[in-house]
């Protein structure tokens, strides 16, 4: 199973962060990615998701 931001996204196992972002309409310039607790550097967004990965993809929002 592949969990991205708390949701089962197993359809993206073997696909890259880049492909995931494109399909979801995320702007890669504005996101940071953490896989299994480790930050994925921006130049590694072509890395593939593996079965069992837990992924967080975050961006800036308004806040005080």
């Amino acid at each position, binding site marked *: 199973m592949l969990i991205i*931001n*708390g949701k089962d996204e197993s359809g993206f196992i073997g696909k890259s962060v880049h492909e995931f972002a494109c399909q*979801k*309409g*995320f*702007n890669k310039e*504005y*996101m*940071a990615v*953490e896989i299994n*607790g480790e*930050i994925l*550097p*921006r130049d590694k967004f072509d890395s593939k998701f593996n079965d069992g990965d837990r992924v*967080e*993809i*975050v*961006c*800036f*929002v*308004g*806040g*005080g």
Partner: protein
Amino acid sequence: MMDIKDDFLELGGHKFSSRFILGSGKFSLTLLEAAIKDAKAQIVTLALRRVNEGGSENILDFIPKDITILPNTSGARNADEAVRIAKLARELGCGDFVKVECIKDSRYLLPDNYETIKATEKLANLGFIVMPYMYPDLNVARDLVNAGAACVMPLGAPIGTNKGLATREFIKILIDEIELPVIVDAGIGNPAQACEAMQMGCAAVMANTAIATSGDVRAMAKAFALSIEAGRLAYLAGLGEISEAARASSPLSGFLE
């Protein structure tokens, strides 16, 4: 005459002519850029959250490039979570500043000073310019200085309450005893309160809700900018003494008969 032209706020080796830190929560994105300009703010806080599907707009598109981004660690309940959020924020490429928020209490959103000290130490060691949001306790402020903080950010009142300087006396102690900038954060509800904080000797004021939820966001942003500048100028000028008895302003001799 005292002039504030050459008066700078220094944080982690960076100089700012504005002493107003603007929070970006609760604003419509289209109003945010104008509010930043009207506030004359040079530092704007942001939060970090999971990306939303279909959300192609990003708040960074609405913040001028010369603004210093101050990510907060809101959502963190302890030091480890704050460090994790700070690292993710830095990965977004907006610099090394971070406002540490470690909050366990969900009703009053009061900061956990113990976890805040731990997070500050870890983040300072990682090269961050750490601005910790804290409950105004002198011993904790001293620990934050030793932990490598760039300033301390005591709350005036609980976040978003607009209640003002409920902790006034304790913030004053920090101003008197701590060498770092003391930036009052949270609870500031109107320009008069911001001005008072500056007159007391706070180095800067942070506000968000008071502006974002006002009737005219741009006018309120400007009112805050003016009041913070006025308060700073008054502080630098040195306030007159308070006296119990009246002291005549006019000469007490040469009365007409």
